[in-house]
């Protein structure tokens, strides 16, 4: 069965520091890969997605993610974190050929200190 692992439950970084959030998936073939962000009291918003092609994908708000097939990973990065980036981040996968139902990781909560 497909699964998504986000090994870091909570990360704290200083404003202006770089950020990397980890995501590993378990699936026989390369799935569609997504990162969503959830601010407190709000729904999820798509940051970026990977389907094929260039393994480094750019998203909104200055985020990027790199797909590494050999490591079954899709880590999210940002070179310089802003206080407004404090939120919960979810990695998700959808099986190719499926109807698009997403499997989510448990999320990583990001805190930003001044």
């Amino acid at each position, binding site marked *: 069965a497909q699964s*998504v692992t986000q090994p870091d*439950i909570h990360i704290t970084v200083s404003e202006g520091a770089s950020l990397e959030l980890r995501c590993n998936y378990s699936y026989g073939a390369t799935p*569609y890969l*997504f990162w*969503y962000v959830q601010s407190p*009291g*709000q*729904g*999820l*918003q*798509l940051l970026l*997605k990977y*389907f094929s092609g260039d393994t480094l994908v750019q998203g909104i708000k200055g985020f990027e993610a790199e797909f590494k097939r050999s490591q079954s990973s899709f880590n999210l990065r940002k070179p310089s974190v802003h206080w407004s980036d404090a939120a919960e981040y*979810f990695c998700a996968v*959808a*099986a*190719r*050929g*499926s*109807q*698009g*139902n*997403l*499997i*989510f*990781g*448990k*999320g990583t909560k990001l805190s930003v200190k001044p």
Partner: protein
Amino acid sequence: EADIYQTPRYLVIGTGKKITLECSQTMGHDKMYWYQQDPGMELHLIHYSYGVNSTEKGDLSSESTVSRIRTEHFPLTLESARPSHTSQYLCASSEGGPYNEQFFGPGTRLTVL
């Protein structure tokens, strides 16, 4: 403005009550979803719909039911609420296919006493 709405945002209710959580979208999306989200846990899909008169159960078993009589509306009903139903419920919609973005509503936080 195209959007997805959920009401109520917060609901505190006693055991045994019937409740309906509302979800509406103005984007004309065929596919709609209900997720259950507990703190520190992943979102679990409990229901989805491909279009009008189509409903399917998701990966997580739920005592709730859904209906899809209109494209834009996908309400979730609990006939008899229990404390174990306390959770956050998120509604989403998308165009068909696994590669399309899902748009999420703000969620309903349900507490059953």
